[in-house]
């Protein structure tokens, strides 16, 4: 399966860009652009979990929102169910949204505090005109049960629930219209460690039960390794590496991914003592003014002249039929 052979792909993302204009002065003239997402091409296959990782500001959340058209992309195509989402009208888009939903990061901010749980979970059904009032009520109770909440909670308000329970409500809402594709934007980062595992296990169960496809956005690489089938690593608006989970973690090709992996602490003092840390210097540059050539070059320890001048191509270095996409001039030396 190659990136360009789109037939088997469930969702095809081509050259996706999202730039936010920087406006200055009385006339609000555009003086520049924050290149939050700058030319992403990848596929998401049916039934898989694609993990999207990167540090804050790398554009991973913007990518998720641009795929769902919650943010209008500046350029590029997103094909989902034979429809080019970027070309759809408002009404058509609303119809398509029935099949693609989102789970948000902050379970405290993403639920309306004045609505009951029943209304929150039932709202998508109303918007899409699914069933009558009685059916909807039944469906809401089913959904609550599905995510492990008591169906009698329908008349309660969000503040009566803990963080983990609220995230379950958010998941129930996302599942209400029976979608095939869900973008989960850091669904567990706001939760305590012991509750994170509960929510991740729930998402895993629902995936196999309902045949879902996930785009799982996170910054926690150990959780991403656990939940994903394939992993994409983003840096400053670009995907720098994309491959099967085990390929990425064991045969890492991009220096940024290597540094990211090396920065993750392992809960084992003996391994920690033996570990050779690769510590990145400096901070992530501003996406309004990205470095020339390879965007990672100012922080990279393998940097050469070509990296400063030429933008590396995103190419497939996979062997034995496996895909391994990487954007680095020197990736061959890590094989």
């Amino acid at each position, binding site marked *: 399966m190659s990136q360009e052979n789109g037939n088997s792909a469930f969702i095809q993302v081509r050259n996706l860009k999202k730039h936010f204009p920087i406006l200055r002065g009385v006339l609000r003239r555009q003086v520049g652009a924050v290149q939050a997402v700058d030319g992403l091409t990848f596929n998401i296959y049916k039934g898989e979990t694609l993990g999207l990782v990167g*540090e804050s500001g790398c554009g991973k959340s913007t990518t998720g929102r641009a795929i769902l058209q919650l943010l209008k992309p500046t350029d590029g195509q997103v094909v989902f169910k034979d429809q080019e989402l970027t070309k759809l009208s408002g009404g058509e888009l609303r119809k398509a949204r029935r099949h693609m939903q989102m789970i948000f990061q902050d379970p405290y901010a993403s639920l309306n505090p004045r609505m009951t749980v029943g209304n929150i979970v039932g709202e998508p059904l109303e918007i899409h005109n699914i069933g009558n009032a009685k059916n909807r009520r039944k469906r809401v109770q089913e959904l609550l049960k599905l995510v492990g909440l008591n169906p009698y909670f329908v008349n309660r308000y969000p503040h009566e629930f803990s963080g983990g329970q609220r995230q379950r409500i958010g998941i129930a809402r996302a599942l209400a219209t029976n979608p095939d594709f869900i973008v989960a934007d850091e669904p567990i980062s706001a939760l305590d*460690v012991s509750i994170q*595992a509960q929510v991740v296990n729930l998402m895993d169960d629902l995936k196999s039960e309902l045949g879902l496809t996930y785009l799982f956005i996170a910054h926690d690489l150990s959780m991403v390794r656990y939940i994903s089938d394939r992993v994409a690593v983003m840096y400053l608006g670009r995907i720098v590496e994309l491959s099967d989970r085990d390929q990425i973690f064991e045969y890492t090709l991009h220096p940024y991914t290597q540094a990211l992996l090396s920065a993750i602490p392992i809960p084992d003092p003996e391994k920690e003592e033996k570990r050779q840390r690769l510590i990145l210097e400096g901070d992530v540059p501003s996406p309004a003014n990205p470095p020339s050539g390879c965007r990672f070059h100012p922080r990279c320890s393998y940097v050469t002249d070509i990296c400063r001048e030429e933008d590396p191509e995103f190419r497939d270095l996979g062997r034995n039929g496996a895909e391994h996409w990487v954007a680095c001039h020197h990736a061959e030396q890590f094989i």
Partner: protein
Amino acid sequence: MPKLLEVNGLVTKFYTEAGVVNAVNGISYSLGEGESMAIVGESGSGKSVSVLSIMGLIPTPPGRVDAGEANFNGRNMLALSTNELRDIRGREMAMVFQDPMTSLNPVLTVGRQLTEALKLHLGMDTNQANQRAAEMLDLVGIPNAEDRLSDYPHQFSGGQRQRIMIAMALSCNPSVLIADEPTTALDVTIQAQIVELVKQLQEKLGMAIIWITHDLALVAGLVEKVVVMYAGYIVEQAPVHDLYKKPLHPYTLGLLHSMPKLDEKDQTRLASIAGLPPDLRQTFNHCPFAPRCPYVIDKCREENPPLMPTGPNRTSACWRWEHIREETGFGVNV
């Protein structure tokens, strides 16, 4: 190792309109000179409140330290006056907070904020203080330290601001540094930088460290001993190697098993801890972890276990620690 800080039977409560919240329920621990230790727990476990109590930083009302003592260099911190405490805080005992974005004053230059403690505690004049402040910034790895003293906090990145906080905390050469989740708001690559920095500084300056965190993985390579808190109690404390190799409290065991390991290829289903942390408005005459514990027996529901010695320098507050020691793996997959 001579003892630097000894906390005995510390009890802190918050008297709120909704009831009395038992935030810290009689905890005791000690810290040697130059020793590094971690207090690990989830939100609401009392990990931050326990050190804020010692430093006299609990907002009163509603909070109140009701019992206990905290002997620091031979003085009981809990019995000192506000002025005496102020003399110790920042000089002998310094703290770095979680959020570097909000713990610096945005309208004062970094230099002004760095020199404040130097002038106040060490009686330096402006020139001396500026020189020392520049040295400190240089020490924590901020380039062009001298020029940057006149910059404002917004001109620094998140990681740099946390470096400035560390420089500020260490400027008076404290004998203990308390770090309250200093890397939680930072990205992993920046977190790795800060952790490395603190390790190097400890080697160089020899201060003791209390690192407060919710992340068991983070402190594995960082400290010598770990204290695990749950619902305002210490449930287990042990030297770092022993704790990770053989946790002897079901909560520690559960925490370790609910984290996926980055370096393990075949990942089995995560063992989550069922249920939710308890409401702290109750007083516990049973084990606070019993409702979520896969090892629970009748005794756990009847009597709250004290910390029992389970080996050299380690204790666990579990009636069944011997059973857990004999077992391998985590009992129940919920």
